[in-house]
C-alpha cells in the first residue's frame, strides 16, 4: 500500500474532525484547534486544508439543514472516510513504533 503522506496541520485537522464527530464544521474545527492546540489558526487555512483533505479522499462532507443563525446559511459537516480513518491509524501506528523505539534512559538524560 502506498504510504499516505500527511502534513502536520493536516493531521491536526483530520484528528479534530474525528474528535468532533457529528459536530465537525468550519467554525467548531477552527475553535477546537485554537483551544486544544493553544494556537491561533486562521479560518482560511482550516478551510483550504479541509478542501485539500476532501480532494485526497480522507474526508467527506454533507450540507446540514437550514439554520436560523448565520443568516440562514447552511453548514457543511465533515466526517472521516474509511480511507481517512485508515490514514490516521497508520500515522498513529508509525508514531507509536517510533515512540517505542526510544530507549528509556533518554528521558533521564534529558530530564536530569
Amino acid at each position, binding site marked *: 500500500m502506498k504510504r499516505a503522506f500527511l502534513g502536520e496541520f493536516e493531521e491536526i485537522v483530520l484528528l479534530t474532525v474525528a474528535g468532533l464527530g457529528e459536530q465537525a*464544521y*468550519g*467554525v467548531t474545527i*477552527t*475553535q477546537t484547534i485554537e483551544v486544544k492546540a493553544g494556537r491561533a489558526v*486562521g*479560518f*482560511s*487555512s482550516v*478551510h*483550504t486544508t479541509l*478542501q485539500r483533505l476532501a*480532494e485526497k479522499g480522507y474526508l467527506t462532507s454533507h*450540507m446540514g439543514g437550514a*439554520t436560523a*443563525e*448565520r*443568516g440562514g*446559511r*447552511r*453548514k*457543511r459537516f465533515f466526517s472521516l472516510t474509511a480511507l481517512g480513518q485508515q490514514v490516521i491509524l497508520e500515522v498513529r501506528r508509525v508514531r507509536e513504533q517510533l515512540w517505542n523505539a526510544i530507549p528509556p534512559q533518554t528521558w533521564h538524560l534529558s530530564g536530569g
Partner: protein
Amino acid sequence: METPPRWATWLLTTFSHPDTQEEVEGDMLELYAHWFQTIGRRRANWRYGLNALRLLRPRARFRAHADSSHSLLRPAMIRNYLTVARRQLWRNRVFTLLNVVGLSIGLCTSWIIYRIVSYELAFDQHIPAKEQIYRVVTHFKPGSFMPTSPGLPVPLLAAIPKQVPGIEHAVPIRTQWNESVYVPQPAGKPERFRANDQLVATNPDYFERIPYQWLAGHQRRALEEPNQVVLTQARAARYFPRLSPQQVLGRRLIYFDTLSVQVVGVVANPTRPSSLGAQEFLSLATVSARDPNRDQWDNINSADQLFVWLTPQANPARLAEQINRLAAVHSSGVRLKNGQRERWHLLQPLADVHFDTEYADSSHPVDKAVLYKLMGLAAFILLLAIINYINLTTALTPGRAREIGIRRTLGSRSGAIIGQFLGETVLVTLLALGLSFALAPLFFTQFGDWVPAGAEQYLDWSSASLFVIGLLVSVSLLAGLYPGWLATRSQTIGTLKGAPLETAHPLLRGLTLRKGLIVFQFGLAQVFIVCAWLLGQQLRYALHKDMGFERQAVVVALLPINNQTPPEQIGKRVALRQAINQLPGVALVSLGSLPANQSISRSELSLPRDSGEVTLGVQFKFVDSNYIHLYKLPILAGRNLQPTDTMRDFVLNETAVRRLGFKRPQDAIGKQLSTGTVSYPIVGVVRDFQTNSVRHAIEPLALISYQYHASYISIRLAAGRPDDWASTLANIGNLWRRFYPDEPFNSLFYDESVQAFYEQERALSRIINLATGIAVLISCLGLFGLAMLTSQQRTREIGVRKVLGASVSSILLLLSSEFIKLVLLAILLGSPIAWYLMEQWLADFVYKIDVDWWVFMLTGLLALLVALLTVSYQSLRAALANPVDSLRNE
C-alpha cells in the same frame, strides 16, 4: 447583531468558489460573532478581513476549476494550435493568399487614411494655451467678389495689440513672396535658390509662444532687429550644405534680390504640423520698412494675418467689436451705415483655423466633413475585406468538419475551437498587415499629390502603434469570431460518420446571408464602375472640348517677373516677341495671359446709358494685338486691338456685350467704357471662348492691350511640320537665355496646360479608378469563395446529373445562372445609386456630358463578365469532374 466589514463580505461573495460559497460565508459570520464577543470589534474586524483576503488565494478559488477542465493554454495545446493553423493555412494556400490580399487592401486603406487624418487633426495641437488663441479675419458684405479673407490691412496688424484691451500677446504672420534667395559665396557670383515658399515675417513674440527647438542662436534675442532671419534646419542645410547650425549663425542671405539679411537662429525642423508654421522667419521690421501697403487701411491681403492671445476673461465677440471700431476710425467701409457694414472683422478660434475652408489661403484648410468621409471610406473598405474573409473562411469550414469533430470528441470546448479560428485569423491578419506596410509607400509615391503635403513625414509613433494594435485586434475578432462560432455549431456525430457536409452546417444550407453579401459587394462594385466610367468620360470631354480658341501647335511659357520698371519690362518682352517671331518654324508670337487660366483678374466696368449707368463685373485679359490672331478668336464685329503697349481700347466677348444690354455685337462698337478713372472705347467683339475650366460658365471678358501684366508668352509653331518642332523649341530656348540668362525656359504645349487645369479631376479620377479596382477585386474574391462552396456542396448532385446524361454545358449554365441572377440584382440596385452620385458631381460643371442609359448597360455587362470569369473556374471544374469520383463516397 454585529455586522462584519462590508468590503470583506463583498470579497467573499464575489470571489469565493460557488461550490463552497454558502458554508464559507456562514462559518465566517459565526466566527465573527464569536470574535466580536471575545476580543472586541476592532480585532474581530481585523481577523475577519484578513481571513476574507486569504480566502482569495488562487488555490481557494481556482483549484477545483483547474482540475476538472482541460486547460486551453497549456504549452502543448498552444503548440498544437500553431501546428494546425500552419498546416491549415498551407493546405488552402490559394485561399490564404486571397485572404491575405483581401485583408491587406482593407488594412492598407485604413493605414493610409489614418496617416492622413491623424496628420490633419494634429494641426496646432502642440501649441500651448491654444484655447486662448484667435485669428483676426475679415468679412465683406454679401455679394462681394471675395466673401471673406483671413488677412487684415497692414496698419491694423500693429494697431490692434496697441489699442484693443484684453489681448495678452499678438503675433502677426505675414507670408512673403520671394522669387529667389541668394547665398553670397566667398569667390564669384552668389548662389541662387528658387522656389522659396514658407517664408514669413513675424515678431519676436512668435518664438515665445510657438514651441521650437533651438539648435543655434537664442530665442529671446531673435527677430528683434531689422534684417534678421531664423531658418529651420532643413533650410539652413539647403543654403549652407557643409555648415553646422552653429556655423550658419551670423551668415548672410539676400532676399528680395537686394536685401542682405543675417541668420540669427536655426531651429529644428518642426515635427508637428501647424497653421502658424513656416520654414524661414524674417523679422517683421525687415519687411515693414519696404512695404508699400504700410499705410493702406483698406487693402486686405490674405498673406497678412494676425493671431492674438486673449486674456482668460476676454470675450471674443466684444473684442471683435472693439477691433471694428478701431478699424472704422481709418476706413469708411467698416463704419456702420444703416446698421450695415461693407467690411468687418471677426475672431476665429485657432481650433477652426485649419478646418474652416471659408478662409482659403495658401495653408490649405481642410473640411472636417471630408476627414469623416475618409474615415467612413476606410471603415467601409475594411468591412468589405472582413466580410470577404468571413465568406471565404466559412466556405472552408465544412472541409474541416472532421478535425473539429475529433477535437470535440476529445473534449475540446467551444472556447478552444473558437480560439483556434481566432488564432488563424490573427496569423492571416499579421501577414496582411505586413503586406499592407509594404504597399503603403507605393501608394504614397503613386498618389503623392492626393495626399496632403507633410502627411507622409508626420508620424506620431505612440498613437500610430496603438492604432495598429487596435486594428489588428478588432479585425481579428470581427473576422475570426463568426467562422469559429459557426464551426462549434457543427453536429459532431454526423460529421464523423461521414454524413453529407451540408447537414453539418444547418446555417449554411440557406446561404442567404452570403448571397446578401455578394449582392452588396457587387452593387458597390457597380457603383464604382459607373462612377469611374462617367468621371473618365467627363474628364475626356473637358480635355478635348472645343474651347472656342485654337490651341493646336501652341507653346506657352511663363514670363519672369523681375524688379524692373514697367517700361523696361515691356521693352524686353516686346523685343523677345520680335526675336522669336523671326525664327524659322514660328508662325506667330503673342504676349498675354492664357485664354483659359485659373488665375483671373477681375474689375468693374461701367457704361453710361439712357436709363442710367450699367455696371458690370468683368474678367480682364492683358494681351497684345497678335493675341486674337494667334488663338484664332473669331471677331464678330469691329476690329482687333491697336498694336500699343498701353491700354487704349477694349475688345469684349459676346457675353459682356449681352450683359451690357446690347442686342447685336455691332451696337457696342464705339461706346465708351469707364474703369472708374479713365474711359476707352469698345472697338471689337469676339466670339465667346472658354476662360476657365468647364466647371464655370463663360464670364463677361475684356481684352486689353497692356503687356506689363501679360503673364505668358504664347508661340504658334508653323503647322504641318511637327518633326521640326523640337529644333524650333531648342532655338527659342537659346534665344530666351539671351534675354533672361537666369530664368529657365519651361515651355509646354497648350494641351498640357489644359491637363494641368483639371489636376483635381484627374486626381479624383485616379483615386476612383483605384477604388474601383479594389471594389471589383474584393467582390471577385467573395464570389470566388461562394462559387467554390456551392460547387463543393453540389458535387454529388452534379455527379448524379452527369450519370443521368447531363452535358457539361448544361451543368455550367446551371451553376452560373445562380450567380448571374445575384450579379444582375446587384447591378439593378447599384445603378440608381451611381446615377444619383454622378448627377451630384456633374452638377458642379456648367459644361458636362449627358448621362446615357447605355453607360449602365455597358458597365453592368462588364461587371457580369468579370463575375462570370470568376465563377467559371469553379463551375468548369465541377462540371468536368468525373462522376465516379464524386459518387464513390456513397
